[in-house]
């Protein structure tokens, strides 16, 4: 493409959305095809990448780094959904720390007494986007769509209330439990975060699903909020063994936890 005809380079929102994985697949392909023929867009993309790198360094230096080292996108979710590997018997419950997982602290420390650096590990900066994945072949429970609309607008309290209501009357559902756990984790208050533990644990224990590894990662965060650092560390150890793209993130959190504890 003639560079003079390039409008994309003058649209930082488009290039930013591309870099952050926010474009849908057709738009992504269109931009990439263009990127391979346009130096101006490459230059702009490199600039945004450098900004991302330097801002992250600043945040890390000031201790304000995001809790998640990588950012999920709907595309990653779709890719994960497309690569489900069903493993017979993989739903074994591992409630005790796995062998070899270092013991960091007796459980039960009051959240209020925890250092800010530890509480920061429980932050969910960028909750996963909801993408309807037709994995079950049946209709979602009544009220599910409304709850997920609230979730998509960032109204996590309403989403949690809606999903909690459905849960009371419906059969087990991994997707519902996952987003209930995330919504509770995103809601204000330690009580809601503590309530997130049970649905997230159900997702992890259910076995392979597109949500399992991320549920394990968030379960660790919920355990941090409850002050159960050993259990969080053990859960992140498990996160690293599960299929998905969040192993490095879990490893980062474990390192940060050890650092925060001076180990």
């Amino acid at each position, binding site marked *: 493409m003639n560079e003079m005809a390039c409008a994309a380079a003058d649209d*930082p929102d488009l290039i930013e959305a591309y*870099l952050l*994985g926010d474009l849908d697949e057709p738009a992504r392909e269109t931009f990439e*095809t263009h990127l391979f023929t346009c130096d101006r867009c490459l230059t702009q993309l490199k600039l945004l990448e450098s*900004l991302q790198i330097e801002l992250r360094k600043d945040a890390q230096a000031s201790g304000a780094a995001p809790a998640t080292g990588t950012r*999920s996108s709907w595309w990653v979710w779709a890719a*994960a959904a497309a690569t489900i590997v069903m493993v017979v018997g993989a739903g074994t419950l591992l409630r005790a720390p796995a062998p070899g997982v270092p013991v960091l602290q007796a459980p039960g420390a009051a959240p209020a007494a925890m250092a800010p650096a530890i509480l920061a590990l429980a932050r969910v900066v*960028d909750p996963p986007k909801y993408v309807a994945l037709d994995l079950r072949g049946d209709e979602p429970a009544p009220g599910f769509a409304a709850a997920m609309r609230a979730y998509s607008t960032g109204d996590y309290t309403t989403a949690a209330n809606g999903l909690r209501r459905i849960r009371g009357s419906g059969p087990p559902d991994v997707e519902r439990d996952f987003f209930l756990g995330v919504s509770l984790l995103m809601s204000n208050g330690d009580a809601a975060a503590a309530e997130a533990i049970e649905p997230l644990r159900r997702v992890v224990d259910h076995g392979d699903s597109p949500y399992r590894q991320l549920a394990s990662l968030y379960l660790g965060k919920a355990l941090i909020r409850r002050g159960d650092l050993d259990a969080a560390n053990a859960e992140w150890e498990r996160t690293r063994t599960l299929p998905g793209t969040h*192993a490095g993130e879990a490893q980062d959190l474990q390192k940060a936890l050890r650092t925060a504890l001076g180990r």
Partner: protein
Amino acid sequence: MSSVLPVPDDQADLADRIRLGDRGAEDALAAAFHDRVRLMALARTRDRELALDIAQETMADVLVALREGRLREQEKLAGFVYGTARNRISDHYRTLGRRPREEPLDDEHPGGGASNDPLEQAERNAQVRGALGTLPAMDRRILLLTLVDGLKPGAIARRLSLSDEVVRARKSRAIRKVKEYVDGLSRT
């Protein structure tokens, strides 16, 4: 090494020179496409190390194909590189789960992300760092929440008690200022 994309006729010439064993042409191929592939893989995988691996593997695949004269429409070299990169990324997702990565996203590598030209990238990063130092703290915060935390203007507005419009305007202005700062340094 700057990335200067060859026009289609030059792409055909470049492909032909590589087929004939011209090492300079291989360097030109890497200069034109390595960073494109790396950034594409970064946008799709959110993993800098993996993106670098994919870029290197893609360029190796392309080089082998060109040396063996397997690209018939040589003027479509850019499309060939893009298709090869997509195949590499698809390969990664096909094996997802069987080969979980242990290394986290890390910006501390020399060159800050291992571009095709680490020196150029290190220089650009330093320029951007200088530009960030000229921005108001609020603008830096908005950029951080946008580009690192990945928040949308609405979420940032709620967090910073600003309106969506103000967040959008400040973000656009901040990015424009950074670009102007870097362009100014590059010209001098």
